């Protein structure tokens, strides 16, 4: 059938592009507020900055319904296993934004209590700097992620990808090494 014989207007496109377009415009974040940054994350979703403009206003309470985990704040050693569990409960495709310096690198808290960068636990796609990052900074991070989704691989599984974020392989340490305070069993 020739295209000009069709009675309606329509657009053509590659299926991959359509899927990417759909994914990019409906990223549902999980509420994973931890500390100061969570307040700024709430500000981003609230009236003035209005994250709804990017199709992202629905902060899902359940990780099963979320695509994006915004790790907003400092991750303590006690919280780290919980964070990993929430990440594992999210369904693919999923993305992680590390919001603020504490989540990205431990920030000013270089001590016994704080995980020095959430990328030791989950693979991170976008790091948002600041202490705390303002809503504009977070939105820039989100738009960067949107761009990554638009141009990225379609069928990437994070744990085995050599390029996507920090490809975490959690395994038992060699015999004799002191135990890390956090032990995370490999998700299967």
């Amino acid at each position, binding site marked *: 059938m020739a295209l000009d014989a069709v009675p309606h207007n329509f657009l053509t496109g590659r299926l991959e592009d359509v899927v990417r377009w759909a994914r990019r415009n409906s990223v549902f974040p999980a509420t994973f507020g931890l500390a100061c940054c969570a307040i700024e994350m709430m500000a981003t979703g609230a009236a003035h900055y209005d994250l709804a403009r990017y199709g992202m206003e629905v902060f899902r309470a359940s990780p099963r319904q979320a695509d994006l985990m915004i790790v907003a704040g*400092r991750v303590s050693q006690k919280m780290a296993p919980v964070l990993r569990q929430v990440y594992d409960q999210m369904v693919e495709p999923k993305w992680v934004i590390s919001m603020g310096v504490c989540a990205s690198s431990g920030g000013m808290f270089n001590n016994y209590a704080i995980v020095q960068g959430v990328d030791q636990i989950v693979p991170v796609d976008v790091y948002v700097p600041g202490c705390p990052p303002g809503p504009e900074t977070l939105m820039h991070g989100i738009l960067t992620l949107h761009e990554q989704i638009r141009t990225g691989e379609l069928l990437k599984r994070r744990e085995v990808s050599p390029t996507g974020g920090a490809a975490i392989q959690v395994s038992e340490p060699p015999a004799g090494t002191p135990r890390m305070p956090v032990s995370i069993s490999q998700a299967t």
Partner: protein
Amino acid sequence: MNEVVNETERLSRQTDEGAQELKASHELVVTGTVWPELEGDGETMIINMGPQHPSTHGVLRVMMELDGETVVRAKPVIGYLHTGMEKTGEQLTYVQGCTNVTRMDYASPIANEIVFSMAVEQLLDVEVPERSIWIRMMLAELSRMASHLLFQASNGMDIGAVSMMLYGWREREETLRVLEMITGLRMNHNFVRPGGVAADLPDGWQHAVLELCDKVEVGIGDYDTLLTGNPIWIERTVGVGVITTEQALALGVSGPILRSTGFAWDLRKAQPYLAYDKVDFDVIYTQNGDCFDRYRIRLTEIAESIKIVRQCVEMMPPGDYRVQDKKITPPPRERIDQSMEALIHHFKLFTEGFRVPAGETYVSVESPRGEVGCYIVSDGTGKPTRMHVRAPSFYNLQSMGPMMEDRLVADAVAVISSVDPILGEVDR
């Protein structure tokens, strides 16, 4: 509806005469027992709320023992945001210390900065200039407004008035904008420093602050219209999460929760610091100790803060914004370009910090959540030997158990929300 009829009586605002009388009608003891092993008839069930839950204000975990839908007992489990800030505080100089404490109570950072700075100043035995005192007081009240506005937003959303999330944030954004104009940051300002404040007020601050006061005043009128007489709101909050004065005092609770029980304890009046004895304001308190009263107190306290801020604008004294003591104050920026000694002086202050005489001190101020205190032990070096912060949320959190007991599980969220804990401060 009975509650509505009695409402004016219940809410009648009182000033402090006679409020300090305490009737010891109950035992001043709240029993804290060891958490039971789950055993026996299997009639009750233990469920966890959190640490990842939208209404736990961060990473609070609440263990609840349920009998059907009734909470038999509840226990907060904390530590999921333990940051080791008190330990980090021992590794930072007194100049850097404010950077640390301001991240504890991130909803009202100024109160933490003030209490830390005041403790250091007490050890140093310096008098800060009048203008810096008034700047501090104005910022503290702006911060209190921002914090209580955040409470209005999150409390509304937790109980089901989701539109409050948008309204509360609308006014909070305005407040943050003014704070950003003055301090340079929306949160975690690090603006109040030992010896004064970091900078003078910017040009045009009076106009910005007064304009903000007008906007927030309109805003709290809106909340009042939306919530106070709303039958659903009353149903969800009146008589929920009741705590008595005796229980509150036995648990060390302070702030709006204590004031909601009829005990008008406010450090701004009880032991005036900064210049609170020179401004006119009321201590808000109510009699019922329930969630509605705590909402109402915080709403009215915003109005009181506006009152104080307006007086600050009017009475702001001229002068220097920091103490001119070369031991603790860095030289002005222009001097650094001209003088080698000034450059060395500046470098020394920001690398080694200044030395503080040996001793210990405790200073407390009224934060939006209650009494925030700072206990510093100095051994005469540039860093504190011990820096402890008495965080009001930590103590207030203990009141959650008695409030939830024998109530429905649906009220648990209302109780958590009305305690208004900031977990960064609880776990530190």
